[in-house]
């Protein structure tokens, strides 16, 4: 890619060093390994599986896990593993899209407000606070109900558009404190413009913080998407981990002892968010040269 | 003898090992004496001040004794030291600006503080001392935030000496202040000693000129050890340790101009105290260093009250 070849040398050095420490950091490796394996399962699983749709009826109902049905079957005779694999894909998509959109909005607003300060900051801050106090779930309910949103993409878009304010506030506060440091003044004296200073001086300093924010937004999006799915406002076709949980609850899987129906989706959501958190702690150690030495 | 410190060793625990911040320091102070403790950052002066009153969690008492008015101080035992703090030894911290509770009026705070030490407020004496440091009495009804840096510093001085401690430790109390305020605070400290509010005082600073104005005796430390200790006048006018000489020569005084007399600093930097070098610690930077400096020089009393740790002195 052209971007890597035009990278200034000193940043290439930093990246090479970061990589050196990254491959030696257990927390980072474990965290990413878990997320990556679930992601790969979600991406390639459906391709490999014989079933064309996740909700296909495969025969025996309420079967516990076996060699034939790895995660057993549902009350209606659907294969839980097939649903799980498709659900992972949808869930990652909802999380990545929703979290990604929210993160981009939060970063733009947070960086600009924190760096520019003054009137720009006051206006952006007011806007952020207004969005912050809107009861997100209720708005999403109304939007979904009236517009009849039934695709994962649009659902994620609305989640993204409503869940950024706290992140914007956090990024603004961080930017504000970094802006006062003299290396920002020095960067200006080196002829760098605002955009460059934000991207090359301020953002790298809070990279682990930004990553953490993204993780939380990612997890939040998954949870909001699941909640919407849960009350029947999710995607009409397909399946998601949230939808699986909802079905399991609706058909009393817990009471019937069908643990294989609700444990996989629940555990997967926990594993994704938890592993990203562990990876974040590791990333902090990689990016902070002071933590490295100890 | 009011204070006698012998072979005091205090180490800092770090992840890379123990930093020997104070590596065998001995000295004594008389009643009524102000000892100026000077040296570069990392020489152990603040560690010495802290270890006489409260060690922080990373510090470890690795040896040596401290005796105050004939009683040995349990400096390694945080609890047992409580009996001495404030009553016998008191500290004015470096950032006294943040040492006061911002939500309490100053007068109220003093009352609470004294009650926690089981003492009642002597309002008349309090007013006396506030007058002495040149503050208006109504500061007692104000909040700390309403005071300027110099006023806060003087207020903390009054508070920390209310119980007439035997020893007062003033750690860089003037380094954040403007020159004119600095002079006022320094004079107030002298007044405290002259009025007998404190018997003796250790004045820690990196500003040798200020120490020269305030202290009776100056002790120069280098890399966790005593380099030279002498009456202030003698140390400034006739220093014997090469480090002291170079340090004094690096200070521009008003009257010295670059074109007329170019001063120079001391090349190099102090050794790491994680694993200090054998022999004299100033050896690498010393213009006089010779073979004998491979062995550690003891602090010798070369004339009355003038101690130097150098083979060449």
């Amino acid at each position: 890619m052209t971007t890597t070849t035009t990278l200034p040398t000193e940043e290439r050095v930093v990246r090479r060093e970061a990589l050196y420490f990254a491959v030696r950091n257990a927390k980072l490796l474990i965290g990413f390994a878990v997320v990556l394996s679930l992601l790969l399962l979600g991406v390639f699983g459906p391709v490999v599986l014989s079933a064309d749709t996740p909700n296909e009826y495969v025969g025996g109902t309420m079967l516990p896990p076996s060699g034939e049905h790895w995660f057993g079957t549902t009350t209606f005779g659907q294969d839980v593993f097939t649903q799980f694999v498709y659900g992972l894909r949808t869930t990652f998509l909802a999380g990545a899209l929703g979290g990604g959109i929210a993160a981009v909005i939060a970063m733009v607003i947070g960086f600009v407000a924190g760096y520019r300060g003054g009137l720009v900051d006051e206006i952006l801050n007011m806007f952020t606070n207004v969005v912050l106090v809107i009861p997100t779930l209720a708005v999403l309910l109304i939007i979904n109900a009236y517009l009849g949103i039934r695709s994962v993409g649009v659902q994620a878009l609305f989640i993204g558009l409503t869940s950024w304010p706290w992140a914007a506030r956090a990024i603004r506060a961080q930017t504000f404190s970094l802006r006062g440091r003299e290396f920002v003044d020095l960067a200006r004296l080196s002829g760098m413009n605002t955009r460059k200073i934000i991207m090359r001086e301020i953002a790298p300093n809070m990279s682990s913080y930004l990553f953490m924010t993204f993780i939380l937004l990612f997890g939040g999006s998954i949870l909001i998407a699941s909640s919407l799915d849960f009350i029947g406002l999710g995607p009409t076709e397909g399946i998601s981990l949230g939808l699986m949980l909802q079905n399991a609850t609706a058909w009393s899987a817990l009471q019937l002892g069908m643990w294989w129906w609700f444990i996989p989706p629940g555990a997967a959501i926990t594993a994704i968010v938890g592993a990203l958190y562990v990876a974040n702690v590791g990333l902090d150690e990689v990016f902070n040269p002071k933590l490295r030495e100890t | 003898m009011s204070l006698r410190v012998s072979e005091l060793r205090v180490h800092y625990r770090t992840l890379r090992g123990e930093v020997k911040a104070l590596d065998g320091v001995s000295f004594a102070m008389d009643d009524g004496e102000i000892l100026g403790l000077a040296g570069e950052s990392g020489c152990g002066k603040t560690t010495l001040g802290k270890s006489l009153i409260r060690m922080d969690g990373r510090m470890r008492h690795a040896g040596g004794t401290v005796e105050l008015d004939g009683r040995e101080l349990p400096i390694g035992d945080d609890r047992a030291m409580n009996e001495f703090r404030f009553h016998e030894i008191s500290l004015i911290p470096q950032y006294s600006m943040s040492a006061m509770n911002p939500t309490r009026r100053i007068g109220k705070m003093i009352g609470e503080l004294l009650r926690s030490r089981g003492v009642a407020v002597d309002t008349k004496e309090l007013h006396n001392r506030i007058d002495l440091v040149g503050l208006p009495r109504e500061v007692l009804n104000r909040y700390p935030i309403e005071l300027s840096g110099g006023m806060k510093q003087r207020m903390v001085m009054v508070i920390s000496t209310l119980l007439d401690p035997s020893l007062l430790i003033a750690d860089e109390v003037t380094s954040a202040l403007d020159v004119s305020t600095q002079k006022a605070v320094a004079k107030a400290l002298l007044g405290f000693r002259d009025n007998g509010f404190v018997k003796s005082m250790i004045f820690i600073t990196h500003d040798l000129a200020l120490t020269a104005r305030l202290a009776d005796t100056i002790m120069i430390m280098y890399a966790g050890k005593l380099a030279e200790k002498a009456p202030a006048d003698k140390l400034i006018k006739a220093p014997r340790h090469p480090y002291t000489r170079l340090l004094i020569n690096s200070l521009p005084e008003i009257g010295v101009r670059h074109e007329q007399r170019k001063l120079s600093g001391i090349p190099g930097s102090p050794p790491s105290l994680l694993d200090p070098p054998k022999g004299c610690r100033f050896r690498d930077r010393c213009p006089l260093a010779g073979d004998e400096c491979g062995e550690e020089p003891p602090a010798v009393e070369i004339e009355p009250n003038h101690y130097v740790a150098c083979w060449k002195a």
Partner: protein
Amino acid sequence: MLKVDNVTKVYKVGTFGSRTMTAVDTVSFDVRPGEVVSLIGESGSGKSTIGKMILGLTPITSGSITVDGVAVKAGKEYYRAVQGVFQDPFSCYNPIFKADRVFQLIKESYYPSVPDTEWAERVRSAIRDVRLNPAEVLGKFPHQLSGGQLQRLLIARALLLDLKLLIADEITSMLDASTRIDVLNLLAELKARGLGVLYVTHDLSLGHYLAERTVVLRRGAVVEMGLTSKVFDDPLHPYTRQLLSAVPRLHAPWEDAAPVETCLYHERGATGGLLEAEPGHHVACARLSDC
């Protein structure tokens, strides 16, 4: 070269700028090539604000600042000639990058076409100019270097440009006595290169050691300025006298400030602004006592 002309800075404080605070009040002075001027003041005197305005880091409320006739304009071309070094060496470096990145940023902005090997040689030569050993300081993180080394590297960085004016804002106040004098000597050496240096400080003895001319500030306004020898040996303003008398000296006790017997100002019937007491020695009305 540097001309500061009737510069005022008013800060808006409070919500939506409901109140104002004057940090710098109609200040005028100049710095010539090959000269160090020290700007002396206590905290709140506005000395750092003036430095920041000259560097274009803070906008000017009124008045004008020009370097060789060109007004301050934050941007590449201006910073080719005007640079700054600040108080806290550790805050001047981005902690996650190596210290020598400051040189790389200069190359990217100003000398993108210079080949890497030639640039590396220029950097090494600038580092030797500030009396450092390139092998000891290159390739290290800021926390692995000392404050003195970091400040020298920033001076070396400025020397890579076509520098005319250097603003040195309290650059020695965080350094130890044994290293600070060497950094000051470096500043003095810059004069030989024809550079102008504005040395902002609160320390009178350091200002006296280094500067040809001295500007004394009090609460945002100039109270006295002129040749350093005049201002220090024959201070006319009571504030200057008070400051000088408060400086602790190694070999002499503190003295009380000599009172001002006759106020030149009122004697000559002058009002407002600065009065030229003798050629090149300006003093403000005392306004401290009713003379």
